[in-house]
C-alpha cells in the first residue's frame, strides 16, 4: 500500500489541533467543551427571556409613543366622534363599565355558587359531577368569538331574543369569563382547611351554615381576586362584541341595558385602528393607553386585596 501524504487529512488534523489549543488558550478556565456549551446555552435562554420582555416593552412603548400626542383629559369626557380632534372615549368607557357591571352581577353568584357546589357538595365519584368539571375546563378554552356566536344565536336572537343590546353583551361576556371565576373561587374555597369545617359541624351547624358562616367569609379575598381577574379579561375583549352588534360611532351615553345601541372601549379602538387616517390611528393608541391604565388599576387593586386580606393558615 502506498502511504501517500494526503494533504486533506493532514490539513484537517493540523487544523483541529490548532483550533483546540487556541480554544484552550482562550478559555483557560474552561477546560471542557461542555462548559462552553453550557455557557452558550445559558446565553441563549437569557436571550429568550429578553426577547419576551423586550416584546412587551416594545408594545407598551409603541402605544405610548403613538398615542401620547392625543392624550388629554378630553379623552375621558368627550364622546365618540368622527372628528379626530374632538373625539373622546367617554361613550366607549361608559359602555365598557356598564358591560362589566352586568358581568359582575351575573358572574359572582353563578360562579361562586358553582364553585361551592363542586367543592362542598359534589361527590367526585359521580359521573355527572365529572362531566360538569370537564365542561368547565373545556369552556375555559373555547375561542371568544365562538361565545359571540353563542350570544348571537341564543341571546340576541333565539329564545332570549333581546336584540343587539348591552345586556346581551354582558351575558355573553359573563359566560366567557365564568370558567375563570369558577376556577379561582374553587381554589379559594379549597384553601380553607378542613379542620375549620369539622369544628363548625361538630358544634351542630348544618353544611350550608358552615359554608355561609365559616368557609365563604374566609375564602372571600381569594374569590374577589379571581373576580377582578375575570373582569379584566372581559374589559379587554372585543371579538364577541363584534358579533353582538356593538356599534362604534354612537355618541349617546348608555342608559338602558335592554334597548338601544351600545359600544365598548376595545371595539372603538379596533375600529379606529383599522382606519387609514393617521389621526384616528393616533386616537386608537391613546385609547389603548387608557385601557391599559384601567387594567393596571384593576390588577393592582386585586394584588393589594390579596396581600392585605389573605388568610395565613
Amino acid at each position, binding site marked *: 500500500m502506498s502511504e501517500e501524504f494526503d494533504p486533506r487529512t493532514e490539513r484537517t488534523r493540523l487544523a483541529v489541533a490548532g483550533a483546540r489549543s487556541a480554544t484552550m488558550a482562550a478559555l483557560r478556565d474552561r477546560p471542557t467543551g461542555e462548559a462552553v456549551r453550557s455557557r452558550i*446555552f445559558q446565553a441563549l435562554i437569557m436571550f429568550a427571556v429578553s426577547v419576551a420582555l423586550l416584546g412587551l416593552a416594545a408594545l407598551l412603548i409603541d402605544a405610548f409613543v403613538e398615542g401620547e400626542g392625543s392624550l388629554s383629559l378630553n379623552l375621558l369626557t368627550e364622546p365618540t366622534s368622527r372628528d379626530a380632534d374632538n373625539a373622546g372615549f367617554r361613550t366607549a368607557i361608559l359602555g365598557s363599565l356598564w358591560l362589566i357591571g352586568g358581568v359582575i352581577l351575573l358572574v359572582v353568584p353563578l360562579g361562586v355558587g358553582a364553585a361551592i357546589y363542586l367543592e362542598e357538595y359534589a361527590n367526585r365519584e359521580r359521573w355527572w359531577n365529572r362531566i360538569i368539571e370537564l365542561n368547565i375546563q373545556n369552556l375555559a378554552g373555547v375561542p371568544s368569538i365562538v361565545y359571540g356566536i353563542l350570544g348571537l344565536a341564543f341571546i340576541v336572537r333565539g329564545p332570549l331574543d333581546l336584540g343587539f343590546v348591552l345586556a346581551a353583551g354582558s351575558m355573553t361576556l359573563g359566560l366567557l369569563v365564568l370558567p375563570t371565576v369558577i376556577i379561582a373561587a374553587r381554589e379559594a374555597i379549597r384553601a380553607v382547611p378542613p379542620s375549620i369545617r369539622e369544628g363548625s359541624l361538630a358544634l351542630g351547624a348544618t353544611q350550608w351554615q358552615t359554608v355561609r358562616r365559616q368557609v365563604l367569609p374566609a375564602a372571600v379575598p381569594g374569590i374577589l381576586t379571581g373576580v377582578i381577574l375575570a373582569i379584566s379579561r372581559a374589559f379587554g375583549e372585543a371579538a364577541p362584541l363584534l358579533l353582538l352588534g356593538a356599534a362604534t360611532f354612537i355618541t349617546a351615553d348608555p342608559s338602558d341595558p335592554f334597548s338601544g345601541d351600545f359600544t365598548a372601549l376595545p371595539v372603538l379602538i379596533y375600529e379606529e385602528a383599522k382606519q387609514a387616517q393617521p389621526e384616528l390611528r393616533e386616537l386608537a393608541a391613546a385609547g389603548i393607553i387608557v385601557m391599559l391604565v384601567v387594567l393596571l388599576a384593576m390588577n393592582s387593586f386585586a394584588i393589594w386585596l390579596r396581600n392585605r386580606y389573605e388568610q395565613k393558615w
Partner: protein
Amino acid sequence: MEAQSIGASSPDGITRRLEAPSRRWGEKAIYLALALCAFLSVITTTAIVIALLGPAFGFFQEVSPGDFFLKTEWAPAQALFGVLPLVLGTLSVVLWGLVFAVPIGLGAAIYLSEYATPRVRRIVKPVLEVLAGIPTVAIGFFGVSLVTPLLQDIWPGEFLGGPPGFFNAGAAALCVGLMIVPIISSISDDAMRSVPSGLREGAYALGASKMRVALRVVFPASLSGTVASIVLAFSRAVGETMIVILVAGNTPNLTLNPVEPIQAMTAYIGVTATGDIATGTIEYDTVFAVGALLFAITLVANLISIRLVRKYREVYE
C-alpha cells in the same frame, strides 16, 4: 335554665330530640340552587353545540362536505365554499407563531425554573404574566404600528417573494406568538418546578452542568406538562381574532407564506357576522359552518391538553 336550651343538665325524662326540627327544606333548596349554577356549564356547552350545529347542518344540506373541505377557493358571495384557504390562513399564523413562541417560551421557562435566583424570578414571572393580560386589540395595533413596518424594513430582499405587504401573516404570527409566550412559559415553568429536586441534585452531584441537568433531566421529566402548554397555546392561537383581523387582513389566500396576506377562520367570522348579512342566507350559514370547524379544532386540542396536564400532575402529586 331556659326551656329552650338543649341542656346537659335537663332533668331526665325530657326526651333528647334527635330528630330534625324541620325537614330542612332550606338545605335541600340550597343544594339544588348550587347544583344548578354548576350545571350551567353543561347547558352552555350544549347551547354552543346547538348554536353551531343547527345552521351548520343547514349549510351542509346546500354545500357538500367534499366541496367544503377540499375545494380551494373561498368566496361565499360567488358560491365558492372551499374552506381550505381559511384553514391554511389560520394555520400559517399559528404555525409561525409557535415557531417563534415555543423556543422563547421554553427558554424562558428553563430560565425561570433552573437558572433564575428567587429575586429575579419574583420580578420576571409576574412581568411575563402581564403579557398574558394585554388585550388583543392592543397587540393587534402593535402589529400594524410597529411589527409590520419593522418586518418590511429588515426583510432580506426578495426572500419568499419580497417584503411583506401591509397585511401579512408573518407579522400576525409574531404578535400571536408574543401573546402565547406566557402560556408556554408559565405552564412549562410549573411543570419543571414540580420535578423533584432529588433528581436534579443527583445529576449535579455527578458533576453535570446546569445545561445538562436542564436538558437531560428536568426537560424530559416535565415533558407532558410542557407539551400540554404548547397544545394549549396552539388552541389559544387558533381562536385568536383581533390580531389576525388587524394584522393579517381579510383576503382568503391558500398559502403558508408569511409575507402574504391571509384570512383566518376567526377573522372571517368576525367581519362577516357583524349584522349586515341577512339571516337565513347561505352566506350567513357559512359563519356557523366555519365556527363549527373552529370549535371542533379547539375542542380536540383542549381535550388533549387537559389529558396531558392530568398526566403530569398525577406523576408528582
